[in-house]
């Protein structure tokens, strides 16, 4: 499937996520795919990109083979440019210093709202999830990239609970609610790159990954997707991209 023969779904997510990042941006990243994507972007096309961690780290020093297991512990402060309080690193979002925040979630809906709080009824949940952390702040205050595996149970018409507001009820409802900046930017899955319609703010497919057909994406989605008139095709991960990822994560902790 690639010029390199093969790659995992996680590698595909990391590569596709890295490509939407631009040089000079400041990016809020968690560990795992987001950190790999941001680091890959720095190595390939965005040397002036800055990474932020929620624990309070600005411009960490990422050592290949020593990816931090979390963004809130001392290992990720080593040789960083700056450490600061959680409050202050999150306030960078509000002040406008952050271009992109990476997000995940248990569920995403057609308007890009994310749920990481409750499966089922919040009053009597089937599952109590760990909660928002800084996710709600990222979703509220900057453009977010959601990176997740494309599954029908995760891509639902309406999330059970809006932990992190996307385009809320669509149209102008997000900014009417008071969130006048940011919003869902891209949803990157193992099948496609998706965006949001300018007017309705519904999720739409912008480009399909190599070998993926539109029906396949719709079948893996719990609501009716929009499709761009001319759906693009992403280029397969390159040898160089995969080599960097495997140098960063030689034990394949995140890219398995």
């Amino acid at each position, binding site marked *: 499937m690639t010029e390199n023969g093969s790659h995992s779904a996680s590698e595909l997510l990391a590569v596709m996520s890295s490509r939407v990042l631009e040089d000079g941006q400041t990016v809020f990243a968690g560990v795992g795919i987001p950190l790999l994507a941001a680091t890959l972007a720095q190595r390939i096309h965005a040397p002036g990109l800055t990474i932020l961690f929620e624990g309070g780290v600005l411009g960490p020093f990422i050592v290949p083979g020593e990816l931090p297991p*979390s963004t809130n*512990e001392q290992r990720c402060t080593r040789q960083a440019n700056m450490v*600061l309080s*959680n409050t202050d690193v999150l306030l960078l979002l509000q002040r406008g210093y952050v271009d992109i925040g990476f997000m995940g979630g248990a569920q995403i809906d057609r308007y890009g709202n994310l749920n990481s709080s409750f499966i089922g009824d919040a009053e009597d949940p089937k599952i109590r999830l*760990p909660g*928002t952390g800084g996710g709600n*702040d990222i979703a509220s205050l900057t453009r977010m990239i959601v990176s997740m595996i494309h599954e029908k149970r995760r891509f639902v018409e309406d999330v059970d609970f*809006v932990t992190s507001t996307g385009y809320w009820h669509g149209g102008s409802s997000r900014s009417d609610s008071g969130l006048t900046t940011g919003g869902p930017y891209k949803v990157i899955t193992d099948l496609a790159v998706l965006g949001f319609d300018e007017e309705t703010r519904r999720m739409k497919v912008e480009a399909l990954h190599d070998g993926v057909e539109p029906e396949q994406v719709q079948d893996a989605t719990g609501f009716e997707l929009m499709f761009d008139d001319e759906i693009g095709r992403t280029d397969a991960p390159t040898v160089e991209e995969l080599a960097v990822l495997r140098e960063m994560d030689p034990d394949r902790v995140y890219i398995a």
Partner: protein
Amino acid sequence: MIKPYGDLRRETEARDRSLREKVMSLEEAAALVDDGDHVALGGCTLSRTPMAMVWALIRARKKDLVVSRSITSTEGDLFYGSGASKHVLTSWFSQGIVWGVSKVMRHYTETGQATFEEWSHMAIGVRYRAGAMGVPFIPVRSMMGSDLTGRIDGPKEMDCPFTGEKLLLVPALNPDVALIHVQRCDPYGNAQMDGLPFMDADIAMAANRVILTAERIVSNNQIRRAPDRTKIPFITVDAVVEAPYGCAPHECYGVYEPFLPNLDAYAAQISRDPEAGVKEYLERYVYEPKDWVAYLDLLGMDNVIDAARRGRSVYND
């Protein structure tokens, strides 16, 4: 929920804020916490968790505490499992990303035995900061539109009187007690922290009582050599306890990293039956040891040495 300003001022005025030595034992410090108090914890997830004081509060059979923290890890499980707290206010609650969703948090909240009050991470930080500044609220531009605001008591929407913009006013948090672990402080309570500061300075200033635990109590002279490193002033501090490895099995920057084998063993123990698992853990690791050193002994000398070796390497390599 918000303390009226008169009460806040009266409570602060009534405290003994004089320059005085306040070194005491974990048990003596635990006696400064009352049942029902709002207890705020410094640190974040696995880092600079004031575990020794959490351990001492549970041993002292505290009840009905409201616990708040920026992000909550296994110490939250211990509060729920021991019954010391049935209410945790935090932004994220699980042992840590690598161990997945906390089974103890799930069990207690899904069965209605305990509550996890969820606020955005920044909102919690701004709430402590408002408390530290002595104001009843600070506006934020986050959380609007989400279902989080419908489930919590406190924030109010407002149209900005200057710009007309919609804002969310988040109310000040002024905890009854702050528990904060630091690398070093003096007998008066002047504390210096290295590495990630988390929300600790704001929490200390916001709280009505502060209990410091420290890896090492140093002389006031030592603190005075670098007054620009002091992050918590003694006037806010009510108790100073020396607690070596006071975050174990969590980490303390520059001193030790997380005790991973112990954390893995804990995760395994609660995965079979969360409620029984956490209660067995409490019995063995919290109630039974005769003191903090005996607890460390249970964690194992090899783990202590290994965590310290890794912790120092982050700093010095």
